[in-house]
């Protein structure tokens, strides 16, 4: 089994390195085949591991010692347990699909080989992240996916910067940097968490740490919990570190599908789920997580309502769904969070890939106001995206229905009715914006004919075929909820609904389904027959507020980025040059100046010299008189 672990882990790396060899050469299909093939291998290995773990429980392997200093020993240790196995399968599944999809999507891109190299490298990092048996290993993966994300968001690095009016993300490279830097802020907190663990437990291994939790003080656990969660907030783009995710849509769409929907952004959720013994001990923090998640869910959904950018809408919906996951995890329903994570991965990836098809067809036009009526040209894509949107909206029997409803039930069950209510509202909003997007894109008049010079056409068949597994999973995954629960709860706490909740569960389901359906209906009413722009509404304060993402990016720009730059400039020009350096030079100058002044005593006139001797004698008298009187 150990070999399977290594195969699952290193196959993507091999693929990545192989592709890297061709990174600077023109497009070569072999890179795509090799990487995709190896990913498939990894998927097979992961799936077998899943099976194995189901039967035999956790597998642990220790590859080698990584860092050892003082009392600290960090190994490259991997363990595959239920959580990991689920994550591995999700990751490999989505990434295999995305790889294959990319063969079509990146067909004409100059950086074709490079793209596959990056993509596989990402998968490798993600695998490390989920497979590591200690926090340091997790951190490797954590940072690794960060870098790959940076590389992939900035994949089209050659694009120039534009002003935020034209493109709120400025440029791919700008967005990439933003993503990296924001993530780093969170990583710092995570590091602090790791340090706290080390100095109080003496080891970074999950097992050791979890075993030690009962003996640790609560305040300490709270600190660790907060620190780790801040880390998770960065990676999962929770408020207030969420801005990067929307900007990350600058990357190629497969990247958005894989990284910014299905896998990397869920790493935060994974962390919370993974650290469930910790969070179980600190209910206050958990509750905060739940509230924050809830807030983000509605917050992001609200922004999605008005956005015109196809990918950004999906990005906000991802954000919103991540909020759901955190809400579940925060409420203690870890397996539910994990289940929603998996389900979301499938349908969201599908949605993104569909969006990629649309983009392709529209020559990279993303404004849904400029589309419409695309269903004629792109039936398959329409089908996929509709399906995925239904799943997202939580319509029976699609995967989203099961997972989302369970979360709502949990919220209800925990008597956190506010959470339930907000999430319930959000479910409605979700349904509305998803279908607003679907209808604006595919239904109604063919606005693109006027607005653009695109000639939309369906993508290659193999691409559609490649997307099929995701579609299938999006449909059927919900039915695996019970086996999933059984499997996951082998190591996660089994969350059971109270009797009461059980009884009214069907009411909740109906209520939820109702709001989702009404959302869809509303969207249909408004948009299915073409776009009617409501100037008044678009100029209203709330609309503007939402469109500008509550002015948060602007706020960050104006109150953090710009002042930072200005302070830096001041520090350099004013402080470092004019104070610190000038002091040093000033001392030198004073010495030099004194020399210049005192050389004046050397007048060249003997008479003055003789007088100096007299002065000297006088000086001696004064010195001695002083020292005599002092002593």
């Amino acid at each position, binding site marked *: 089994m150990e070999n399977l672990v290594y195969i699952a882990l290193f196959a993507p790396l091999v693929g990545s390195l192989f592709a890297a060899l061709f990174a600077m050469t023109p497009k070569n299909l072999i890179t795509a085949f090799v990487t995709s093939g190896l990913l498939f291998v990894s998927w097979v290995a992961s799936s077998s591991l899943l099976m194995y773990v189901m039967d035999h429980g956790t597998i642990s392997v220790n590859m080698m010692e990584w860092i050892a200093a003082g009392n600290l020993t960090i190994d490259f240790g991997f363990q595959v347990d239920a959580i990991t196995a689920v994550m591995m399968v999700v990751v490999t599944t989505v990434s295999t699909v995305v790889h294959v999809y990319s063969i079509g999507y990146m067909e004409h891109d100059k950086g074709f080989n490079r793209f596959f190299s990056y993509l596989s490298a990402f998968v490798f990092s993600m695998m490390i992240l989920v497979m590591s048996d200690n926090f340091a290993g997790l951190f490797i993966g954590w940072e690794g996916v960060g870098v790959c994300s940076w590389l992939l968001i900035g994949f089209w690095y050659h694009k120039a910067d534009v002003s935020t009016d034209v493109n709120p993300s400025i440029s791919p490279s700008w967005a990439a940097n933003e993503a990296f830097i924001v993530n780093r802020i969170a990583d710092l907190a995570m590091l602090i968490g790791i340090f706290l663990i080390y100095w109080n437990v003496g080891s970074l291994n999950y097992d050791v740490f979890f075993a030690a939790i009962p003996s640790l003080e609560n305040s300490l656990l709270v600190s660790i919990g907060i620190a780790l969660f801040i880390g998770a907030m960065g990676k999962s783009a929770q408020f207030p570190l969420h801005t990067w995710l929307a900007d990350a849509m600058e990357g190629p769409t497969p990247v958005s599908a894989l990284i910014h929907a299905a896998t990397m952004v869920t790493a935060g959720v994974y962390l919370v789920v993974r650290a469930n013994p910790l969070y179980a001990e600190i209910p206050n923090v958990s509750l905060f997580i739940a509230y924050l998640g809830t807030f983000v869910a509605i917050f992001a959904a609200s922004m999605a309502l008005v956005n015109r950018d196809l990918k950004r809408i999906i990005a906000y919906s991802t954000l919103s769904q991540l909020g759901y996951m955190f809400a579940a995890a925060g409420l203690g329903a870890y397996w539910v969070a994990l289940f929603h994570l998996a389900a979301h991965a499938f349908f969201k990836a599908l949605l993104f890939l569909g969006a990629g098809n649309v983009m392709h067809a529209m020559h990279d036009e993303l404004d849904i106001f400029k589309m419409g009526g695309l269903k004629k040209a792109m039936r398959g894509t329409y089908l996929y995206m509709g399906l995925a949107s239904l799943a997202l909206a939580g319509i029976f029997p699609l995967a989203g229905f099961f997972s989302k409803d369970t979360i709502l039930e949990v919220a209800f069950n925990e008597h956190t009715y506010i959470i339930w209510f907000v999430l319930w509202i959000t479910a409605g909003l979700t349904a509305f914006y998803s279908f607003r997007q679907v209808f604006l894109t595919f239904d109604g008049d063919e606005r693109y004919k006027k607005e653009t010079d695109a000639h939309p056409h369906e993508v290659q068949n193999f691409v559609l075929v490649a997307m099929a597994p995701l579609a299938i999973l999006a449909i059927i995954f919900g039915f695996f909820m019970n086996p999933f629960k059984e499997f996951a709860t082998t190591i996660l706490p089994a969350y059971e609904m109270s009797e009461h909740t059980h009884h009214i569960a069907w009411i909740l389901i109906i209520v939820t389904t109702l709001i989702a359906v009404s959302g869809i209906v509303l969207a249909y009413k408004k948009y299915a027959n073409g776009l009617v722009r409501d100037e008044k509404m678009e100029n209203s304060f709330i609309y503007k507020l939402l469109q500008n993402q509550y002015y948060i990016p602007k706020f960050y720009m104006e109150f953090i980025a710009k002042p930072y730059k200005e302070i830096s400039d001041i520090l350099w020009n004013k402080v470092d040059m004019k104070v610190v350096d000038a002091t040093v030079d000033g001392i030198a100058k004073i010495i030099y100046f004194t020399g210049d002044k005192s050389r004046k005593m050397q007048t060249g006139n003997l008479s003055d010299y003789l*007088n100096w001797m*007299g*002065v000297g*004698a*006088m000086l001696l*008298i004064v010195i001695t008189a002083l020292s005599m009187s002092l002593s």
Partner: protein
Amino acid sequence: MEQIAFYLFSVLTIGLFLVTVLSNNVLYAMTSLAAGMVLISGFFFLLGADFLGVVQLVVYVGAVMALYSFGMMFFDATKDIKEKNTSSYLVFFLSGMIALTLVIMFSAPIMGENIIASYPIMAGATNPQAVGLVLFTKYLVPFEVAAVMLLVAMISGIILAGKKMDDSLTTKDENHEEDDTFSRKDIK
């Protein structure tokens, strides 16, 4: 008697030397210097240092003054020398302060009670005899060194005042008249 002589001589010496340092006329200065020297020999006689007094007269009034006279004639310094004595306040302040310090110092009970003379003035001998005795035993080496010093002074005087100094080899360009065999051979 001794007191009268001391004070008289003191006042005179001080006066004469003041003339020496303050007068703008070189002739006055020199004359008063010579006179002061004579008076100083008077002090020597007063103090029983007869030999020293005589040497003082011979060397100073005889030799040194003669040299200065020659020098003065050479430099044609009889004409009034215009000196720009700037910063005289400083000069007088410094000298005054130093004088004051010295006076304070010397007002102290300098005279030691228990000091045993290393080279006592012998009872039976005249001063020149006693001086001679010490000079040619204990101080023979300094005496000889003084001789060397005078030789050095003589050589120096001759060289410096000599004709050879008129033409400087140091500044003479010798591009066409290279130095003798040695350097030509060894120049790199």
